[in-house]
């Protein structure tokens, strides 16, 4: 159990470092880093606080506490991924509208030149 929790702690710290580095280099926008930072911080806290983890596992009826941590992490990441799907859908719609507008403006411009 300790090895699994230590591994989770290490992964959480790595994820936080990665997100902060990406933020500093402007590879990720602040609004999209918040979800990842919150998720990794939650994993870090739970992996270091055995009593909290055991209490949550008991509430969920899970005998092996690290499984509760994995389950929570999975749920958080599903929400994060879903949020990104929403963002991507909007970006795609905007991109299509923009491409159509560019094509129509080029058509008008060409017509004016001729």
């Amino acid at each position, binding site marked *: 159990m300790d090895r699994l929790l230590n591994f989770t702690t290490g992964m959480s710290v790595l994820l936080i470092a990665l997100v902060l580095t990406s933020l500093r280099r402007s590879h990720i926008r602040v609004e999209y880093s918040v979800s990842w930072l919150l998720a990794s911080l939650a994993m870090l806290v739970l992996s270091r606080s055995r009593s909290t983890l055991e209490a949550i596992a008991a509430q969920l009826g899970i005998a092996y506490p690290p499984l509760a941590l994995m389950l929570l992490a999975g749920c958080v990441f599903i929400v994060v991924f879903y949020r990104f799907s929403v963002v991507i859908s909007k970006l795609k719609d905007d991109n*299509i509208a923009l*491409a*159509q507008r*560019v*094509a*129509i403006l*080029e*058509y008008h411009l060409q017509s004016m030149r001729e």
Partner: protein
Amino acid sequence: MSELLVLVPAFNEEAAVGDVVRSVRSSMPGVPVLVVDDCSLDGTVPLAKAAGAEVLSLPHHLGLGGAVQAGYKLAFELGFKYVIRVDGDGQHDARDIPRIYAALRKSGCEMVIGSRFMEGEAPYTSLFRSLGIRFFRLILRPILGKDVRDPTSGFVGVNRNALQVFSKSFPLEYPEIEALVVLQRKAFRFEEAPCRFHPRRTGKSSITPMKSIYYIVHVLLGVFVNVLRLPRLR
């Protein structure tokens, strides 16, 4: 100025687009033909221009729905009253355009669908496609309140009311069936006109057997989302 525009969405159709444009111009002299080039990598654009078409070139590949909607947007901005869409692969017979145009004007319907099944079974329709069409007929009948014999036909004429709606909202993948539902929710009317279809002269259908399951799920979802999202006007 003509009140009709013939719209030809095309993606890598150099083997057919020139003949398609020439046959449209021969069937409908004086009617402008707009080829919407969906970022083709071959000679579609110069061949379409050489055949006498205007070309709307998309800056990157949007797929069929995005290309058709771009054409609808431009046609609406330019003030056309009617637009008839003819595929760039040569499947649709341009000699049927006058029939669709006459039906659009005479009936006052917002959409006229060129149907390959009005006069019995259509040749050149694969068994798989026939089964798909029958399936969607069954699904659409209670939603549309009437039979539609060829719901997957891309040989479609629309009037300015439909143009206005489609300029703002148009299904981007596999648009034909969803577009019917969008119109129905707006209390717009459609009818079908008999048309001839030919085997495509070039390329392959975008709907391969492997993609067919995705197609069915996608279209069904799109149909039901539109039914739930758009209030039915009477």
